[in-house]
């Protein structure tokens, strides 16, 4: 009984404080206009989840902000950055978003997965900030909010390129192994659509969970369907044993095993198994890409895969440019200029780096930023178009380069 009373008191004191604060709460439509202040960039990316696939994105945001500030910042002030851990759970992610919103972010970069972006988009945009993701590819996010942008290409075009390659190699049947998450599911759907359009019969589709102890069930099931070709839609982190099994044990080769952008990465398996395997990566120029990867590795030497790092970098750069064009750090004002700086304006000048673009903007010229993820342009629904793809292939040392 005493315990109950004590508990009641303690809880009521804690709660009472809250109620008291609520009672004297003031309310307003929006926080003070932050036009004069510095551009505050928040980033919600996974630091502890998804087998490290998000870590390159974290470094990419660091690199982008450093480059912006080295080039003089935005509207006369340095860009401020706050990175928080999204984990893979909504509960901690929502917390992290709260802290970004309270901090006063004008732009929020993230989230990593399409599913999580759907969970946090209303929270971010309600605060008047704009959300730019460099890695959301699910078509269900298209046009979800006027303040939501993404610089990652939807996988549909890559799927079309892969289907084209499969037909070019002379295959009429294919099997798909896909990672069971937002990215993998959306890609798999696009892949099936592209194969159907090309007349390629999909004879087996298998999904795997990233927490499973092994993927032999999936590999065996697609092998049992005896496809002429297999497309592997999985992160490099999970693909090692599947490539070992498909190439080493089941005799698939670089002529009938195809990789997705995220499957291209660094492996610790025998390099001869990887030799010749191909996949498409978005990006204009392989040399620029290699240079960028070096910068990321300088930030975090443990990085294994770089998928979506370029588009996340672009997400930061393009929103900073939009802020310069808008002469304001206010989220809505920045959002209004996003399409323009990506090449939506008539007679704009193409530019490739932040400094170059910022100088042009300062001189009063309209710019068309084409970033690391290839040509970058926001369509009316804030999705990105104009992506360029290059075909990459592994050499005999286990690293990949643009296919000859």
């Amino acid at each position: 009984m005493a315990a109950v009373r004590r508990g009641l008191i303690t809880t009521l004191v804690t709660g009472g404080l809250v109620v008291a604060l609520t009672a004297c709460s003031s309310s307003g439509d929006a926080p003070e206009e932050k036009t004069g202040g510095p551009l505050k960039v928040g980033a919600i990316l996974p630091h502890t989840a998804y087998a490290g696939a998000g870590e390159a994105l974290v470094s990419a945001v660091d690199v982008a902000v450093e480059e912006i500030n080295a080039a003089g910042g935005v509207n006369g002030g340095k860009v401020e950055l706050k990175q928080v851990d999204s984990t893979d759970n909504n509960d901690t992610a929502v917390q992290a978003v709260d802290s970004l919103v309270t901090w006063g972010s004008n732009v929020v970069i993230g989230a990593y997965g399409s599913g999580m972006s759907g969970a946090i988009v209303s929270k971010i945009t309600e605060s008047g900030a704009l959300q730019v993701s460099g890695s959301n590819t699910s078509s269900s996010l298209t046009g979800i909010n006027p303040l939501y942008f993404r610089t990652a290409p939807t996988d549909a075009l890559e799927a079309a390129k892969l289907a084209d390659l499969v037909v070019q190699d002379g295959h009429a049947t294919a099997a798909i192994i896909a990672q069971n998450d937002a990215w993998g599911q959306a890609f798999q759907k696009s892949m099936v659509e592209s194969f159907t359009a090309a007349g390629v019969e999909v004879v087996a589709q298998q999904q795997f969970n990233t927490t499973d102890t092994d993927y032999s069930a999936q590999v065996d099931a697609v092998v049992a369907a005896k496809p002429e070709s297999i497309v592997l839609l999985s992160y490099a982190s999970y693909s090692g044993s599947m490539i070992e099994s498909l190439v080493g044990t089941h005799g698939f080769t670089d002529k009938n095993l195809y990789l997705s952008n995220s499957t291209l990465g660094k492996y610790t398996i025998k390099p001869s198994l990887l030799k010749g395997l191909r996949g498409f990566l978005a990006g204009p120029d392989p040399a620029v890409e290699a240079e960028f990867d070096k910068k990321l590795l300088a930030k975090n030497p443990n990085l294994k895969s770089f998928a979506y790092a370029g588009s996340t970098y672009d997400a930061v750069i393009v929103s900073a440019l939009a802020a310069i064009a808008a002469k304001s750090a206010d989220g809505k004002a920045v959002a209004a200029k996003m399409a323009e700086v990506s090449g939506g304006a008539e007679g704009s000048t193409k530019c490739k780096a932040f400094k170059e673009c910022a100088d042009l903007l300062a001189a009063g010229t309209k710019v068309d930023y084409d970033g690391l993820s290839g040509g970058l342009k926001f369509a009316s629904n804030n999705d990105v178009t104009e992506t360029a793809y290059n075909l990459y292939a592994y050499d005999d040392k286990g690293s990949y380069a643009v296919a000859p």
Partner: protein
Amino acid sequence: MTPSKAIRWLLAVLALACVLALPSPAAAAPADEWGFRGLLRDGEKQPVSGAAVQVKDGDTVVGSDTTDDKGRWEIIPVPGPGTYTLTIDTTAASGHFAGDEYEVDKELVESPTTLPVLNVVVSTTESSQQVASFTDRLAQRAVSGFNLGLLIAIAAIGLSLVFGTSRFTNFAHGESVTFGGLTGFVLAHVLGLPLLLAAAVATVLGGFFGYAQDVAFWRPLRRRGVSLITLMIASIGISMAIRSLMQFSFGSASRGMTEESWGTVTLGPVVMPATSYAGMGISIVVLAGVGLWLKHGRIGKATRAIAGNTALAATSGVAVDKITRIVWVLAGALAALSGVLLGVFNQVSFDMGFNLLLLMFAGVILGGLGTSFGTLAGSIVVGLCTEILVLWIPADMKYVGGLAVLVIVLLVRPQGIFGRRERIG
């Protein structure tokens, strides 16, 4: 145009939903970039050369080409997006097609997510798709399941022994498996030791890891006389702490254990890497050794005595504390070995053991808590169910098979397959 008997399939008019959502005139390609190219094959997957290919817009012929000796025709340009009819006439083709004609409708869509030139495969006859027979698939899955079952068993025996002597369910046991996998990776991949040597060293280090856990956490807690449920909840905390620490030091990525390859063994329909068979061999030898030791060894007998009745064992002169320590060492070593084998079977990552933990629990409980032979049998049942049931259920639900068998068996026989009745009380 006479409709051919072969016009029966591939009338695919595509309804790409995203097309509607993505009107982007700015992205339009120049008109001369639109077109069709493709490949013509027969039912035996062989290219058909010399066939005439026409692209028609309604009844108007837009362009034509002839397939080359690889069965390909090059880009036939069309003025722009829209639905076109591809007509293929095999009159002049090599082979025995008797002038069959094929017709396929294909749509070119103006969208940033499709290509302006569509690469098309057309087959002259429906190819007879060969698939592996059900028994072949079953055999392959059974061997995989047996392999997984042995892996679970090696790890789970330790869990079961710890339960027998310390009486609590150790949620941190998965981390001992992870420890073995990560140590094996460092030894085999980073230091370049041969796989077998790396496995042996990792197993010994795993023993030390088990010993360290006992000294650092469990002995002090036993001395404090905390309850079993407290121990269980503490083990959850320890599991979380160790797992995050491993992530901190090892990183989040999964990695292949070794570049070493022993080749592939084909036994009838079952194709597996030789390392998997070697792993199974090692598992069986180790499991048999542990079984014999428990049954006939002096310490093994003492272990069973403690599991049976701790107080009685203590009064009969069994050094309970010493035996408990030995059991922790053994549990750590076996878990580490299991981690190495799992790493060879698949990959190593900071949460590999944690992901296996629930299947270990299932194996232990299915066999009857605290009985070693039962644990072995239970683990193999769990492994087989997990891998075989994917023939019927989607592979991304495969753990459901292993866990469901646990729930179902407990409904019928709460003490597990080999457990004694009084254990459930």
